[in-house]
């Protein structure tokens, strides 16, 4: 079974390395598990996911991230992706002129051994299979990636990419922010469809409502760059009822 281990991690902005945002975070996710990280804004949730994916704007100043015991910190972002890390972006980039089908094709091709050519027929068969599974219209993949997409379409596009690339660990960065209930369902249905023993998920969210649709195995509360509380789904409901101030007060009391 595959494991993603975040060990005493410190992260800062690349151009402000002495101001840590994530401050000694520990978390282990096994394939098959869904972990939710909740917390107030500005507490380092998005920073965590981008740093794991290798975003050049973030520097890891301490600790380690390991897949199956092997550090990934020396790897380029694309090597991390091919090693099984998928980041569902809060704000996915637009790629004008590149269709979703061609983009995914390039991403699938990048995972083949050197000199190995992608079988186009098999690729389209698999792509259409995944689209059917996610109830996505066939016309969708001829559109340029995220170009002029609505919020919901962007999420749909992220979910489709995730389904095609079959990551071992998916980091979902505030995937629910700014979504109406229908778009939220797209994300939730997608994740639930892919849920299984081969996939580990880290759901980063500000609100509890996503967890009504995707039931996590564990819920962590992140505050000031650290995980300060861990529990089951009940913790999310408690947070929803009492608000983040409750955590802050509890921390202050310690």
């Amino acid at each position, binding site marked *: 079974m595959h494991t993603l281990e975040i060990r005493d991690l410190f992260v800062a902005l690349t151009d402000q390395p002495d101001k840590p945002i994530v401050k000694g975070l520990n978390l282990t996710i096994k394939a098959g598990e869904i972990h939710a990280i909740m917390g107030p804004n500005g507490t380092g949730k998005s920073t965590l996911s981008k740093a794991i994916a290798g*975003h050049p704007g973030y520097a890891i100043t301490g600790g380690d991230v390991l897949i199956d015991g092997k550090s990934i910190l020396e790897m*380029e*972002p*694309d090597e*991390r992706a091919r090693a099984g890390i998928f980041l569902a972006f809060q704000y996915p*980039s637009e790629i004008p002129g590149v269709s979703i089908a061609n983009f995914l094709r*390039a*991403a699938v091709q990048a*995972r083949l051994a050197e000199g190995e050519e992608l079988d186009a027929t098999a690729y389209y068969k698999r792509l259409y299979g995944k689209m059917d599974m996610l109830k996505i219209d066939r016309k969708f993949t001829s559109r340029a990636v995220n170009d002029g997409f609505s919020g919901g379409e962007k999420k749909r596009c992220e979910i489709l990419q995730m389904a095609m690339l079959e990551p071992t660990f998916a980091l979902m960065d505030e995937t629910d922010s700014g979504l109406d209930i229908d778009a939220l369902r797209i994300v939730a249905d997608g994740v639930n469809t892919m849920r299984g023993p081969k996939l580990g998920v880290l759901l980063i969210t500000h609100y509890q409502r996503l967890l009504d649709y995707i039931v996590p195995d564990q819920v962590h509360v992140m505050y000031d760059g650290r995980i300060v509380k861990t529990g089951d789904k009940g913790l999310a409901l408690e947070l929803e009822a009492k608000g983040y101030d409750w955590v802050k007060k509890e921390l202050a009391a310690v």
Partner: protein
Amino acid sequence: MADTEILGTDSAVENPAVGIDQSVGDFTYDVKYEFDAGSGLNEGTVRYISSVKKEAPWILDFRLKAYQTFLDKPMPTHWATKDLESIDFSKIRYYLSQGQKPKRTWDEVPDDIKKTFERLGIPEQERKFLAGVEAQFDSEAAYSNVKDIVAKQGVIFLTSSEALREHPELFRKWFGKVIPTSDNKFSALNSAVFSGGSFIYVPKGVKVAMPLQAYFRINAENFGQFERTLIIADEGAEVTYMEGCTAPKFSTSTLHSAVVELVALKGAKIQYITVQNWANNVFNLVTKRGLAMEDAEIKWIDCNIGSRLTMKYPGVILKGRRARGEVISIALANDGQHQDTGAKMIHAADETTSSIVAKSISVGQGRSTYRGQVHIPKHLKGCKNNTECDALLINSNSRTDTYPAITVRGDRHAVQHEASVSKVSEEMIFYMQQRGLTEAQAMSLAVNGFVNDLVSQFPMEYSVELKRLIDLEMEGSVG
């Protein structure tokens, strides 16, 4: 032009020169030349070329006058780059060939030249999708052939030298009429020392279904290639001509200075497609222009990748009523390269329409310049022009400039101009890398996306080729 299959067999090719890398055109074989005009240019060089070709006296006269014009004209550095001054005309070799008569079958082509074209994939493409091919090696075509089905329609497809001998009446009528010798210093140079290039005549009403292709290959160091092409589409005729160009990478500079004239008579259509992939030591200074008569249409598709400096502004003179002119230009300037490209549209009749879409990509320290000239005089009415130029910058030290000169007089015309500059953002590259693409693959995809709306209009074989060239360029551009 080679497809990936050909690339894959690189290692199987015998005897490539030592120390070259594996990018497509960058290889050279030792070739023995029967005819060599030596280095440097003087009247003797011009006379040598003319005598080797056994030309009629009027052609020699034409050449000698052009040589004088070349000497008289200054370098256009008052507006163009000073880099032009790096060209040392005394070091260039102006004529190199194994013989003047192209072969009609590949079997007859000498082995050392044949293997070059085989490696570039030309005979294979000819079998697959072309109506005729001319393959020029340095100064002369080594091979030229047109499929029977096309020849039977009366289509003439010869090298310029052959056509001057066999069809002087057709040739002379339009030769130098679209682009006068004195148009610029390099058109004058070409007119003095031209050799090779294609002559095409498509008779009235004949529509050539498959494209005709020419491939221009520079093999020798310090060489100057000066092909001369003239294409005439008679009334109602239609033809597509494609050209590809490569040269090996030498440490010294090479000069390619062609003149291409197109004549589309009443209702005719000519489409001229270029995919150039010159090595980055080549000065590519080409004059291309078409003359479109009543209801005729001329379309230039011009893709410039590689070279040290390219200066090329394909143009259309819209001479007849309702004539249409179109230029689609794609230029990619990598480190150490300057693509100075654009288009000219000269409206000379009522209700003429022109369209220019230019997209340039600057990578690393690469520099791209768009120069456009649109001219609509006052006495005309109902003319239309649409100009669009978009630039994509890959790095913060890349450079792009746009000089659109649109002169419209009178108030009975419609003109539109749009320009944009965009940059590939770090965020976009990270997004693509996060999906598993390397940085180079990500940039390549961004560039291909940028030109996609234009490339999708190309014949399939050429869009595949262009994509592959962009991939190669971007691969080399990431550290």
